[in-house]
């Protein structure tokens, strides 16, 4: 109330506009680095909110005041678009789905995960990383898939939970994005999956229909494919949009 009041009186063209961006956890480090540059260029105060893409989508459905939404898949933004809550999503990056293990681990491939006693931590079914995990495991022979799923000891609500369990030594292996392994400052190593197993991981973003700053939100989404944030995404290991 107080904030709105001051804004009504004193929101001149010099005051930065508040832009709220909800983005998937896997982009935390990257966007935190490039958002201030965007803010300076556009005279905006960018507020970033990171969580599992599904949670962020649920928040938008519940009416959260968000201007732009960047998800770790295309399905969730497409669903919001279909329900009239988001502008047509733009694919802006790809990521590689990998198996992450602690630096000193003996695990070398997905096949090693079938060994009894291996502690595997994955994303919960509702979050993109968890959906990709199940999609990938479903391509394995049923017996192998079953043995691996039997070793799952936690279904984490977002990527941070998986990486945290791995770096804390609570888990032997987990499925994450290659960018998360890069961001874990050498504690983890990525095991690349054979091409036939690897899911297509495309990131898509859109402007929330009820956005208070639709123009600025649009510029931010555009900036994910061209500009400082696009460069930062590339530096972090994200691939270009398909």
């Amino acid at each position, binding site marked *: 109330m107080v904030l709105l009041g001051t804004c009504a009186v004193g929101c001149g063209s010099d005051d930065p506009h508040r832009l709220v961006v909800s983005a998937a956890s896997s982009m935390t480090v990257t966007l935190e680095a490039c958002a201030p540059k965007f803010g300076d260029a556009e005279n905006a105060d960018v507020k970033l909110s990171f969580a599992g893409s599904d*949670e962020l989508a649920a928040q938008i459905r519940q009416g959260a005041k968000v201007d732009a939404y960047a998800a770790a898949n295309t399905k969730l933004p497409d669903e919001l678009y279909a329900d009239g809550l988001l502008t047509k999503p733009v694919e802006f990056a790809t990521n590689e789905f990998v198996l992450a293990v602690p630096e000193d681990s003996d695990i070398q491939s997905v096949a090693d995960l079938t060994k009894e006693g291996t502690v595997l931590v994955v994303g919960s*079914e509702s979050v993109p990383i968890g959906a990709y995990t199940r999609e990938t495991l479903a391509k394995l022979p049923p017996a192998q898939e079953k043995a691996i799923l039997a070793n799952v000891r936690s279904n984490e609500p977002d990527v941070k*939970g998986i990486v945290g369990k791995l770096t804390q030594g609570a888990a032997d292996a987990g499925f994450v994005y290659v960018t998360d392994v890069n961001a874990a400052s050498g504690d983890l190593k990525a095991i690349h999956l054979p091409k036939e197993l690897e899911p297509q991981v495309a990131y898509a973003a859109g402007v929330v229909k009820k956005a208070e700053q639709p123009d600025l939100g649009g510029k931010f989404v555009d900036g994910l494919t061209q500009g400082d944030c696009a460069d930062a995404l590339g530096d972090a290991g994200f691939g270009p949009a398909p």
Partner: protein
Amino acid sequence: MTRAGLTRAAWFPALLGLCLAAALTFLTLPVVAIFVNSSPGQLIDSLGEPGALDALWLSLRTTAASIAIILLVGTPAAYLLATRSFRGKAVAVTLIELPLVLPPAVAGIALLAAVGPSGILGGTIEALGIELSLTTASVVVALTFVASPFYVRQAMAAFTAVDRTLLEASRTLGVSEALGFLRVMIPVALPGLAAGTALALGRALGEFGATLMFAGSFRGITQTVPLAIYDRFSTDFDSALALSAVLVAVSAAILLSVKLVRGGEALGSAPR
């Protein structure tokens, strides 16, 4: 009310009333909304879902286990703190109370740093053959850590308030301190101990952050009701509402039992 207050305009009582109304609305509305949004039929349907029942059953088991540990260790510890004075007692009491004000996320990180696989005691625990990572046991550890101060604080107050002459009388009759503790102190302090138990129970049932960080989330193993609510938030809001409604009902029952127990006793003193 003062004489001056009676003659002046009644703005102050009006302000008091307004503040109370605001507080009541603000605190009640979200809880009421849970029940407005979920019909009783929906509630029962959602609870029929196996994952929800697993979460409830796990919450009950882990809470019961942690309460058992808290009672067994916390009662004698509270008795000692209430009946003896020693150097460093104030420090000990403060340290025991500290988890009360710790944010759950800090509790989770602290537990990982202490007894997690890479924690300072991680190796020792592993050497003892105790599996304390992503297991039901780790949930119990998290619940015990966050809930025990609620009990110990209350139990200390209850023991402090017991008339010391009772214990001295039993001593002069040749009863040992251990027997006096069991036969005199505990029965007399029982209402206070029960209130403390209820508070710890409520806190343990609602624990979320420390459990997620320290124990993970797996159906039937580590996914307690609050974690199951969070898991359903994005996919099945109705089911999340239904589980929330159950927690509200249980918590209200706990609060009510505390009030009933408290109503029948004279223990109003704050812990020292």
